[in-house]
């Protein structure tokens, strides 16, 4: 894996930013994000951008990371990472993912024309006529809904469920990495601008060290995620997911604390990143859950029985 983006990757990231700009720019995106909405128009334009079609897993991961960094309410990142594992002719719009062994609400379920259902080793794809939802109060920066009933849908080939779950996690890791970077940048700007007792907060070493620590954690998630995407390997993804979940849990209260009470306001804008990080890590699962899964995979690898899968 290279540590500098390729020309293709740079072009794809630039295309993402151009589409956001052509769709009303950051202000419009921020206003939709502030209301926990879904940016259908932006998603549609991203889907229709030729530059963003195809690509390898890392290319698509980097797009998901960039969308999260920009703080938009689009689902194109997740869609891109799942796309090669799903039937080709899916309608445009968000793809919602439901793990039947989890009981929380599903992100974008009310807006999604497609629901991917992960049920142990099986995966099914349902269209909007095959499932019913009940909207949840919007929070954590995105619209959520509970799936109340569902039909059987189309069953995907054996082995797809495991890979879909892994790609879903990659999308969440990318989101946490992108959100963390923007949240740290916002916190940095606040520490430089905010003057207390005659000097900027950024001159206080107690805060500088905490911010630097946050920076190391965010950088760790970024590279563990990118490496996992590059190898598209289940074990690396779980390891990166553990780090992302742990980092999001630590960073959210830490960055809010450093920004003070103004970070509670919508106008300040930090919530776009912190609340989404909070939601993404809950969707990803706790570190206990992910740690147990990594242990299981490790045991399978050591016993030789999972050599073909991991």
């Amino acid at each position, binding site marked *: 894996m*290279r*540590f*500098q983006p390729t020309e293709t990757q740079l072009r794809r990231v630039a295309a993402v930013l151009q589409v956001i700009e052509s769709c009303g720019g950051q202000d419009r995106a921020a206003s939709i994000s502030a209301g926990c909405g879904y940016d259908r128009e932006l998603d549609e334009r991203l889907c229709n951008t030729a530059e963003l079609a195809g690509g390898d897993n890392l290319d698509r991961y980097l797009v998901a990371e960039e969308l999260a960094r920009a703080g938009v309410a689009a689902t194109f990142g997740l869609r891109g990472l799942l796309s090669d594992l799903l039937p080709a002719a899916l309608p445009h719009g968000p793809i919602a993912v439901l793990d039947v062994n989890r009981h929380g609400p599903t992100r974008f379920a009310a807006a999604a024309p497609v629901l991917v259902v992960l049920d142990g080793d099986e995966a099914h794809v349902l269209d909007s006529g095959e499932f019913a939802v009940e909207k949840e109060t919007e929070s954590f920066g995105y619209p959520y809904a509970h799936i109340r009933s569902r039909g059987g849908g189309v069953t995907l080939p054996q082995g797809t469920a495991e890979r879909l779950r892994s790609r879903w996690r990659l999308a969440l890791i990318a989101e946490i990495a992108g959100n963390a970077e923007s949240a*740290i940048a916002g916190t*940095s700007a606040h*520490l*430089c601008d905010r003057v207390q007792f005659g*000097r*900027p907060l*950024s*001159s*206080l*070493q107690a805060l*500088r*060290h905490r*911010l*630097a*620590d946050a*920076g*190391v954690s965010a*950088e*760790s998630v970024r*590279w*563990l995620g990118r*490496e996992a995407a590059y190898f598209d390997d289940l074990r690396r993804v*779980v*390891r*990166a997911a*553990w*780090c992302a979940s*742990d980092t999001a849990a630590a960073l959210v209260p830490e960055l809010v604390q450093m920004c003070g009470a103004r970070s509670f306001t919508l106008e300040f804008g930090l919530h776009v990143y912190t609340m989404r990080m909070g939601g993404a890590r809950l969707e990803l699962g706790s*570190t*206990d859950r*992910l*740690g*147990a899964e*990594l*242990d299981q995979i*490790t*045991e399978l690898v*050591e016993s030789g029985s999972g050599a073909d899968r991991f």
Partner: protein
Amino acid sequence: MRLGAENDGWRVVRTALSHERIGGPRYARAMLVTQRLWQIARERQWCQRDGVRSRFAHAEASCEAARLLVYQAIDARIDGRSEDREVSLARVAIVRAERCVAELVLSLYEDESLDRGSMGNAQLKTSMIAGLGGGSVEVQLNMIARALLGSEASPR
């Protein structure tokens, strides 16, 4: 003998320190300890204890993150790009990994770590010096903060 050109000493110092900071792959040793310990933990049923599996994931993710951040710094060096920030990020990640693994070994082996030559004893002592070699971890945090905040707002 003078190293480098006159009045260019700070650059030489920074270059030497940046090589020292990431020159020793301490994360690789810590990863080997983690992997060995994981096997032992299974044999001794330690993985059934609350939170132990998550702590193994933490240790492994920390070592792997340190490795990637070191590689990132080396990549910047090879390309001739500024590497100060990357080296400091990597150095802090190395220290974190060493300490994380040490704490895991000690918590599992408990009093067995009192024996000189035990895994816990060795990892503890390795981790204790990790935050000091090549400039203290606090200096690395200062350098990362400078990269994030700019140099205008110097610490007091």
